């Protein structure tokens, strides 16, 4: 099971993502933004950070990276892709996921441990959760308010493509408390919270609720 971890200039959570994948038994394969090469990986993790300084708009410049010109068609063809935080923003900018992420309603960057409800446990990255299960993951972002037009929102809701919702208080004013969504096929998932910071007892968030993401994808790849 080889899972690619993409590094853009300004990516920050790549080391955490690779560690989380290794702990789950996968091989983490570094992918470099400037290469036209997915190195034959079985899945891809787009980690968080401030790619290109998040200047202009989060993810706006990254989505044009050479690696993305390989990743976009691969994802459309079914390659499992998980984007967290900046990775989610990049997936939206690349139109692999609908909608956009804009400035938090509170206008501040927020770092806190957030309760999240899993509303779809059938995507490539969520099968080890139960639908309706509440988990705790860190959020840490300044631009995480999910917005989309009414039609898109209605469709996401109707088709069960809202994968995660903020439980308790909403940290950023996201529409419908949306924390994460998936594409129609369920192979591309984006969310603002950080599962890779919740995989060890010693470090990061209290608890290890993030492990489910990685065990889900490993199980899927093993069974594939």
């Amino acid at each position, binding site marked *: 099971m080889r899972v690619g971890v993409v590094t853009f200039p300004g990516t920050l959570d790549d080391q955490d993502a690779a560690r989380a994948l290794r702990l789950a038994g996968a091989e983490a394969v570094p992918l470099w933004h400037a290469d036209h090469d997915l190195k034959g990986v079985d899945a891809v993790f787009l980690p968080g950070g401030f790619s290109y300084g998040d200047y202009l708009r989060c993810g706006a410049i990254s989505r044009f990276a050479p690696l993305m010109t390989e990743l976009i068609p691969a994802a459309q063809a079914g390659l499992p892709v998980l984007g967290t935080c900046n990775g989610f923003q990049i997936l939206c900018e690349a139109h692999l996921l609908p909608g956009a992420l*804009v400035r938090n*309603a509170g206008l501040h960057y927020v770092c806190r441990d957030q309760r999240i409800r899993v509303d779809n446990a059938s995507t490539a990255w969520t099968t080890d959760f139960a639908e309706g299960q509440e988990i705790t993951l860190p959020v840490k972002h300044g631009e995480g*308010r999910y917005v989309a*037009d009414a039609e898109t929102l209605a469709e996401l809701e109707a088709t069960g493509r809202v994968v995660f919702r903020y439980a308790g208080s909403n940290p950023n*004013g996201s529409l419908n408390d949306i924390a994460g969504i998936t594409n129609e096929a369920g192979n591309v998932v984006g969310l603002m919270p950080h599962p890779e910071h919740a995989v060890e007892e010693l470090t990061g968030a209290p608890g290890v609720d993030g492990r489910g993401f990685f065990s889900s994808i490993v199980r899927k790849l093993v069974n594939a």
Partner: protein
Amino acid sequence: MARVIVDVMLKPEILDPQGQAIARALPRLGFSGVSDVRQGKRFEVELDGPADDAAIAEVRKMAETLLANTVIEDFVVRVEG
């Protein structure tokens, strides 16, 4: 050398918390008579050559693909002056 301006604003239906925060702060600061504020971005693009139709079309493409996210934003391109 010519300068082309690209103004990018959130679509009217998208909440603009920055603009709202400003609008709310104004009365407290003693400013009255403002019904709404919206905050957007302004880009000044300096061209190597003149701002002819071809160049403007190029900037428009740049605005559409890069400077604005048309899912949530509208933009206007104009030549300075």
